[in-house]
Each structure stands twice: as structure tokens, then as C-alpha cells.
């Protein structure tokens, strides 16, 4: 089976399914926007303070928004028996899982990246910093979906799954958070930030190679 065909079939399938659930589709995005907008209400409207903490807040928001959709990543397919059928398909199961992860990113991660400029303006961020934020989010959010899929697979069908998933996954998100929010910070201090981009890219590659495979193994364990 062709590598791209498998991934493409799955991405298209999951996107169609997501589109038929319009309410679910936008939940992650609304959640992100609301969390980020609650912050000024918590810490006060001082523009200097807000623009200082904005990158961190946007990143934490992105983390939580990704986490929100993760329990559903495999749960529906697990309940209606589709996951079982997918694991029996002659297509590589790892690639099928990769397709599902990519669809998750397109639904949960990409909208977050695209809405960042509007939130950045609310937080008084300058144009270049917004650009840096978008770039790091673009590089970082796929890692969140990839690592998250491992947690989703491990907690599939387990009682208390959603909360458990956050406990498992959030500590593993720390490097992405540090490099992602750090880049904007470095830019502001006038430091070289290429290192952050390289590190995020390295995490991307590492996660891309290992996460779908580990998730596939964990899913087979869950299906037994």
C-alpha cells in the first residue's frame, strides 16, 4: 500500500467526520480563545504585563486546547468497532494512526495557529512577535498532537480517561512549551532564536517517527 494513500484516506475520513460535527469542530478553538481572554481578568489590564506574559499564555492555551480533543481521538472509533477494523486493514496501522493524528492537528492545532494574530493584537504584541508566535505554534502544535496520541491510546476505554490523559501527557509537553514560549522571549531580548526553531523542528521529527508507532502499539494492546 502506498504510504501517502493510507494517510490521505484517513485524514480525509476524519476531517469529513469532524465537519459533520460542527459543534465539536469549533470547541477547541473557542476554548482557546476564552482561556486566553480570561487571563487579563485574572491578572489585571496592565498592557505591559499582558504583552510580557502573552507568549506563555498563548502556549498554555494551545496546550489545553489540544488536550481537549484528545480523549475523542480514538474513543469513537473504539466504541463503534471501527478501530478494530482499521487494525485489520492491510494498510499499515501506524500510518492509519498517523492519518488520524494529522486530522486531529488540522482540527485542533491549525485553527489555534491561525487565530493567534487576533489574540496577539488584544495583548498588545508587535507584528514581528506575532509572526514568531505563529511560527513556533506551527512547529510546536504537531508535536502536541503526536505525543498526545500516545496518551489517548494508553487511556482508551480506561475509567477516568480524560483526567488521566492530562496527567500523563502534560509533563511530556514541557519541552515544547519551553522552546515555543522561549523563542518569543528570546526575540524580545534581542537574542538569537534560531536555536529554538531547530529544537522544535527536532522534536517534530522525533515525535513524527516514534509517536504514531508507539500509539499503534498501545492501541493494539487496548484492542486485545
Amino acid at each position, binding site marked *: *500500500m502506498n504510504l501517502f494513500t493510507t494517510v490521505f*484516506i484517513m485524514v480525509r*475520513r476524519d476531517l*469529513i*467526520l469532524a465537519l*459533520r*460535527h460542527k459543534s465539536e469542530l469549533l470547541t477547541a478553538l473557542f476554548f482557546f480563545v476564552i482561556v486566553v481572554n480570561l487571563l487579563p481578568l485574572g491578572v489585571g489590564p496592565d498592557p505591559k504585563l499582558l504583552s510580557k506574559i502573552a507568549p506563555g499564555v498563548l502556549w498554555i492555551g494551545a496546550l489545553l486546547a489540544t488536550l481537549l480533543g484528545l480523549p475523542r481521538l480514538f474513543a469513537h472509533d473504539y*466504541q*463503534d*468497532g*471501527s478501530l*478494530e*477494523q*482499521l*487494525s*485489520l*486493514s*492491510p*494498510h499499515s496501522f501506524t500510518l*492509519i494512526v498517523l492519518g488520524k493524528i494529522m486530522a486531529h492537528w488540522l482540527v485542533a492545532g491549525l485553527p489555534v495557529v491561525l487565530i493567534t494574530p487576533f489574540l496577539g493584537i488584544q495583548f498588545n504584541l508587535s507584528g514581528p512577535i506575532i509572526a514568531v508566535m505563529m511560527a513556533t505554534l506551527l512547529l510546536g502544535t504537531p508535536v502536541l498532537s503526536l505525543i498526545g496520541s500516545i496518551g489517548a491510546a494508553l487511556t482508551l476505554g480506561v475509567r477516568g480517561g480524560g483526567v488521566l490523559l492530562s496527567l500523563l501527557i502534560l509533563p511530556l509537553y514541557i519541552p515544547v512549551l519551553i522552546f515555543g514560549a522561549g523563542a518569543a522571549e528570546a526575540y524580545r531580548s534581542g537574542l538569537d532564536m534560531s536555536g529554538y526553531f531547530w529544537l522544535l523542528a527536532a522534536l517534530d521529527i522525533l515525535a513524527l517517527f516514534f509517536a504514531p508507532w508507539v500509539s499503534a502499539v498501545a492501541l493494539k494492546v487496548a*484492542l*486485545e
Partner: protein
Amino acid sequence: MNLSVSNLSCQRGERLLFENISFELNPHQWCHVTGENGAGKTSLLRLCAGLTNPLSGLIKWGGIPLKEDTDRFHQDTLYLGHANALKEELSPLENLQLMSQLDGSPATEEAILTVLDRWGLLGREELPVRVLSAGQRRRVLLSRLTLKPCPLWILDEPFNALDRRAIQTLYELFNQHLEQGGLLLITSHQAIEMTDGMSVNL
């Protein structure tokens, strides 16, 4: 190509379901797995489909252990379980298109419509599966039998929720499949009205 099962033992949780099951299924043959509720019929079928690993024993397809050539085995088998494995948001047509792509033998729209017609589902091919009845869903699932050309069918309670006419259609398909050299491993709580079958009692 034959399916051979030797000395199979299976454990669910901490409980031993069955021990030392052996049988061999050859082309043109069908096998009825019987047993009381909870005896492990579904577990045996899932083992034979390669979904779970046995506690001990070996399953071979065409002389090769399952785990050694899963790709070919998945090409050659169709396993239909209790769950319908249909996406509620999609129509029967879309579901079957998707399934056939994932099975590695993409079917054309006409081919799918022909099959749906045979199962009496024409006219419902564009409705979301959500609105279909249990029997209709089951028939959509069974449409896959003719869409994926493969020798080994493993069917868990395929007659569930089917009406007389659909059961008749299913028998026709079974006979056709066996004539063409197919193999059929099946569980059913009702008697199967076919001759020359073997049976495995758990």
C-alpha cells in the same frame, strides 16, 4: 490456503476460557463454533482474526504463523464482529466506499450500489447511518462480504437482527463463497441451515 489451529489456549483477565483447541479448515469448508454464553466463541474468532494473542498454541494461515505475515493475512481475511463498525455520520455509500479503500480494493459507486440493491438498501444509500434500523445497519456491514474479495471469512453472529429475506441472501452468499473455494468460520446462536459443515464445541 488453509487455516490450521493447534493447541490453542485463551485467557481473559485471570480466567482460562478454553484449552487445547485444534482444528483445520480447508477451502470449500465451513466451521461452526458453538458453546455456551461466555465459553469464548468470540475470543476464538478474534484470535483467528489476529486481533488478540493466545496464551499458548499456534494459528497458521497457508502454513505460515499469523504473526509472521500479517500483511498477507489481513489481505486474505474479512472479520466482522459484534460491532457494526459503521460511522453514524456517514451514509451507507460513504461507509462502504471508505471501507473498501481501507480494505485495499476500492470499489466504484456502481459496484457498491449493486451490492446495496441486493441487500434491499437501495434508496437509503444517501441517508446517514444514524437513522437506519439495527437490521439495516447489519445489512450495510454485510455488504462488505462481496466488496472485499478474500478467501477467509470470520463472522461473529452474522444473523443477528436480520429478517428472513436477508438471512436468505446471506446463505446465498455463503454457498457462493464456499463453491469458489472460500473458507468460513462462523458463530451463531441459531442452527445454520447448510450441510457438510464441521463444528468446534468450546
